[in-house]
């Protein structure tokens, strides 16, 4: 790799040129912004919209914005939202049908033409999106959802239409939250691949610059319109130090050694009862998880009975309907639902998709209203490997 050609250094004015160059290519810019006391991903137009000088304080069930003593633009970890919201929207229309006036009582269907059958595919997504400030764990999460929605025999038109052509500007994390454990999941903190451009924010006294790594041809094309200089050894070493420091300050750790067999061998561990006593079955953990993909389908009809549509919305394995099979829910107890969530994330996902379903972003820990911690629960199962309750529960 030739650092001089693939890595450049830009300042804040250069960052604005970079954003403008992406926007000129017809992309809708989406990036971090402060809203209601948290950092969310929203439409932005320049670096002025970024959370300059803000950081976040995170722990189980706890998130607060705090002031930094510098003007860092990316000086925080991940917030409650992930890019999932833009690629796999919380609610979308699967198909729509309108009763053909001449067809009398014919219920119609997707084959009836015109108004019928159009899903929220590419058309629903509008302009192609550029994600600004994607963290390494999030790139990994997007790759995981790509596999879920685009891999295999059937591709998902809603996801595919939005995912197509997304421009990815990654940011290598400059600090880890107390809830981060991407290092354990081999998912960060440095973005290794899957981006068009990757930034490392370099803050050093008076200096406020960004090392830009170019990942694709279109990334290079954008950079050709941005004022900057080739990166030298000082800058690449400074960037390496940023990553090293972040990696060394992970707030949480998860031991993944043999985790699949560990969880498969502990369906009756009494720890599940313990966590069930604390869990609200509220579903927040699955909503904020950047890899959770479950949805439910709802039929919507108008009063007159002339139009019908199927909507899909984010669902969660913590709802009773999620495992409802004719006559009842298979996972009726909180214990079986928490176990489903954690076992899917850390174990069955591996059999299903070939990777872990967890990228160590820590969102499920922070946004659990009672601060239940997947790393702590996994450690507790490991510490009591093989334990069983007084008697089996017999629930699935």
């Amino acid at each position, binding site marked *: 790799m030739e650092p001089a050609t693939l890595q450049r250094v830009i300042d804040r004015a250069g960052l604005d040129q970079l954003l403008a160059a992406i926007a000129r290519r017809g992309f809708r810019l989406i990036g971090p912004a402060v809203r209601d006391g948290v950092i969310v991903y929203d439409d932005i137009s320049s670096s002025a919209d970024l959370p300059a000088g803000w950081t976040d304080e995170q722990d189980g069930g706890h998130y607060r914005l705090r002031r930094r003593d510098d003007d860092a633009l990316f000086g925080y970890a991940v917030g409650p939202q992930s890019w999932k919201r833009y690629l796999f929207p919380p609610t979308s229309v699967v198909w729509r049908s309108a009763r053909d006036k001449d067809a009398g009582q014919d219920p119609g269907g997707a084959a009836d033409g015109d108004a019928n059958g159009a899903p929220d595919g590419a058309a629903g997504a509008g302009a192609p999106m550029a994600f600004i400030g994607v963290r390494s764990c999030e790139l990994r999460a997007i790759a995981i959802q790509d596999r879920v929605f685009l891999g295999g025999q059937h591709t998902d038109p809603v996801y595919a239409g939005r995912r197509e052509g997304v421009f990815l500007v990654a940011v290598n994390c400059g600090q880890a939250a107390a809830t981060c454990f991407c290092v354990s999941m081999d998912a960060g903190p440095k973005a290794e691949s899957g981006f068009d451009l990757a930034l490392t924010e370099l803050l050093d006294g008076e200096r406020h610059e960004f090392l830009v790594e170019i990942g694709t041809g279109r990334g290079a094309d954008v950079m050709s319109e941005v004022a900057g200089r080739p990166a030298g050894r000082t800058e690449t070493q400074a960037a390496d130090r940023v990553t090293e420091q972040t990696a060394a300050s992970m707030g949480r750790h998860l031991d993944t050694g043999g985790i699949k067999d560990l969880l498969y061998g502990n369906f009756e561990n009494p720890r599940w009862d313990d966590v069930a006593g604390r869990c609200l079955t509220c579903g927040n953990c699955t909503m904020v998880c950047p890899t959770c993909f479950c949805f439910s389908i709802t039929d919507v009809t108008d*009063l007159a009975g002339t139009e019908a549509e199927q909507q899909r919305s984010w669902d969660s394995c913590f709802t009773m309907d999620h495992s409802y099979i004719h006559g009842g829910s298979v996972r009726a107890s909180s214990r079986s639902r928490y176990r489903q969530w954690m076992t899917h994330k850390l174990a069955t996902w591996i059999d299903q998709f070939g990777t872990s379903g967890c990228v160590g972003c820590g969102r499920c820990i922070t946004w659990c209203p*009672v601060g239940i911690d997947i790393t702590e629960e996994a450690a507790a199962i490991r510490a009591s490997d093989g334990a069983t309750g007084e008697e089996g529960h017999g629930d699935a």
Partner: protein
Amino acid sequence: MTGPPRPTLAVWKFASCDGCQLTLLNCEDELADIAASVQVANFPEASREVIAGPYDLSLVEGSITTPADAERIRAVRDASRFLVTIGACASAGGIQALRNFREADEYLPVVYARPDYIDTLRTSTPIADHVGVDFELRGCPIDRHQLLDVISAFLHGRKPSVPGYSVCLECKRAGITCVMVAHGTPCLGPVTQAGCRALCPSCARGCYGCFGPMETPNTAALSARWRELGVSRPDVGRAFRTFNANSGPFREEAEANDAP
């Protein structure tokens, strides 16, 4: 109006504030469609014209608080093919169910000049305690989208789309900041059934529990969290004792916090 006969709709009021009936009248954009799809046969709040029963769909607002109403609800049930309760009063007993936890006789002389004129039951109870109910629509007041969905579901013979999960799912889908995690504001959302579109959290307030207990509420775990956030036991109990005070899980959690 030509075409096939429309199903008849009746709206009934028991002990309540009228807010849920008003939700129906507030469906301004849809009122014409409602009138086109059902024949409003008995809805004194909207029209003085009353068509005799039986009715295809009865919407019942309010709880049962007097001996006369306990009789009247039977007649309503007999005259209705489908009976749907609307709101926390009809579905859970309402705020007036606070009387269930005290002796109503103690209050009567304080409130009324001539308590001997008052003929009341000692409890406020939901409609389902008295007659069979086909569907209970929660909320204080109900949500107009859910009401329209229930009417539409009835008209087209499908299941209403009224989920039993928590308000938190609505919060997260709408991208609303969690007031409990990000602001430290106590919120009943995790134990409360969705339906309001997370109205209070969207205004940076904690959920008040208007839609009653969600399908599998862990009220004890939420209470413990509220106490960590600095809420006293009596205040936790009061939070559970509002519009759905008489709903099992909320009633029990309030009682658990009464204990010294």
